[in-house]
């Protein structure tokens, strides 16, 4: 089965009387991991919400590269873990089944929990977990959806550096082969786990030229290719900042 790519075409979104972006097009090739960076308030989250079908653009379209409808093929992971406090961990992982009135698949949920290292905490309530555990549970919930396209909005930004590094590696491994678009503030995170980096900047916002990161993800933080790309990225981000 080939994984469809994600095509955002000629999107225009206004925020009040201001255009947030106009005529913006972005393609995430099938099976690729693309990281989107840029200053706060530039419209990254809005772009991701349009891709997820949560926000209607003024004009433009979101399509899959195979031409089939996107409905039911996108999983979304937000800034917060968004675990439901009244469900235990495994109940949260299988939330999608419950909401779609499908039969839940506890075996698969347990397998995913095992892969994110939470097999022993399946019956725990989210309140009993640490921040890193909660984010891993949210990752398992995203994977349980088993969608070819995964959208992530700074999912690891609230974690401390060490925990973040571990969860990034986990995410890169578990999302391999899927089409992924990740929003992040963290150049190191972008360089470690994505195939391509794209910078969104300016008012109205424009996309920069995609930067390819050499080597296989997740890359070690001292990988020479990673460090070079990170330097290049930092220069771009600081130079392009006209605020």
């Amino acid at each position, binding site marked *: 089965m080939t994984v469809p790519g994600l095509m955002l075409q000629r999107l225009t979104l206004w925020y009040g009387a201001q255009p947030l972006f106009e005529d913006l097009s972005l393609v995430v090739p099938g099976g690729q991991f693309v990281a989107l960076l840029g200053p706060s308030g530039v419209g990254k989250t809005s772009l991701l*919400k349009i891709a*997820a*079908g*949560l926000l209607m653009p003024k004009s433009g379209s979101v399509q899959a590269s195979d031409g089939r409808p996107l*409905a*039911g093929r*996108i*999983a*979304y992971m*937000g*800034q*917060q873990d*968004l675990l*439901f*406090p*009244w469900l235990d961990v495994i109940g949260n992982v299988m*939330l*999608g089944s*419950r*909401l*779609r*009135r499908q039969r839940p698949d506890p075996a698969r949920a347990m397998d995913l929990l095992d892969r994110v290292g939470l097999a022993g905490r399946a019956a725990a*309530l989210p*309140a009993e977990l640490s921040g890193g555990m909660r984010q891993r549970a949210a990752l398992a919930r995203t994977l349980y*959806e088993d969608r070819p396209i995964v959208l992530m909005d700074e999912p690891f930004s609230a974690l401390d550096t060490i925990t973040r590094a571990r969860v990034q590696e986990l995410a890169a491994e578990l999302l391999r082969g899927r089409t992924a678009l990740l929003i992040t503030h963290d150049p190191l995170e972008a360089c470690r786990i994505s195939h391509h980096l794209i910078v969104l900047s300016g008012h109205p916002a424009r996309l920069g030229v995609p930067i390819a990161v050499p080597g296989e993800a997740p890359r070690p933080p001292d990988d020479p290719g990673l460090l070079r790309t990170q330097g290049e990225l930092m220069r771009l981000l600081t130079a392009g900042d006209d605020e």
Partner: protein
Amino acid sequence: MRHAGAALRPIVTLFGLLLVWWCATRLFAVPSFMLPDPWGVAQALVSQRTILFWSTLTTLSEIVLGLLLGTVLGAGLALLLVFSQRLQRWLMPLLLISQAIPVFALAPLLVLWFGFGMSSKVVMAVLVIFFPITAAFYDGLRRTDIGWLELARTMDASPWAILRHVRLMAALPAFGAGLRVAAAVAPIGAIIGEWVGASAGLGYVMMNANARIQTNVMFAALFVLSVVAIILWVIVDRLLKRLLYWAPDTAAPR
């Protein structure tokens, strides 16, 4: 030790109050038809135990029935309001009017319409009870975390599934707060109804005793009523704590 302390505290409070009460009756030499001493009230509790028992049963039934019906009505109304914007615009003013008219003013009418029996008291209790539940639950239903709603939408949840599995669950703590208030005010409706016109119940006993200047019987009935009210509240509180085991109680020391 902590358990012993928790059990001891209400007893100390009770005896402290009794002592103050007793001292007041002695010190100011209040005639017993104005303020009977604790001993007189205790005697009334014993001598009137049969009528007090049956009256308590009547009043308790009215309160519990009112609480059940009021909760169902209140929760149902909140769901209706959140489900339909149009309905909300029509119903909200009616709800406010229903609360602007004091139940005291409605009591004689309700007795006229629903009779001297239990139904007029239950209706009165429902009128007092449903509003705190509707207000709190409706508020909770409207304040669902946007992130949760968006997540549910990306999981292709139907509006019904979102209401059932996300909004409703997220609003349960608010509903619990409303129910606690309702449980605390529930006896008011029943007692007012019995004052206005009844042939049974603690309120009826109080009015009767009042007319005969049996103040100690009044106090005995009042005592029983407050015990019933406290027990009812504790039961509701315990049930809610069990139902909302997942809701963080941030005031509790860890």
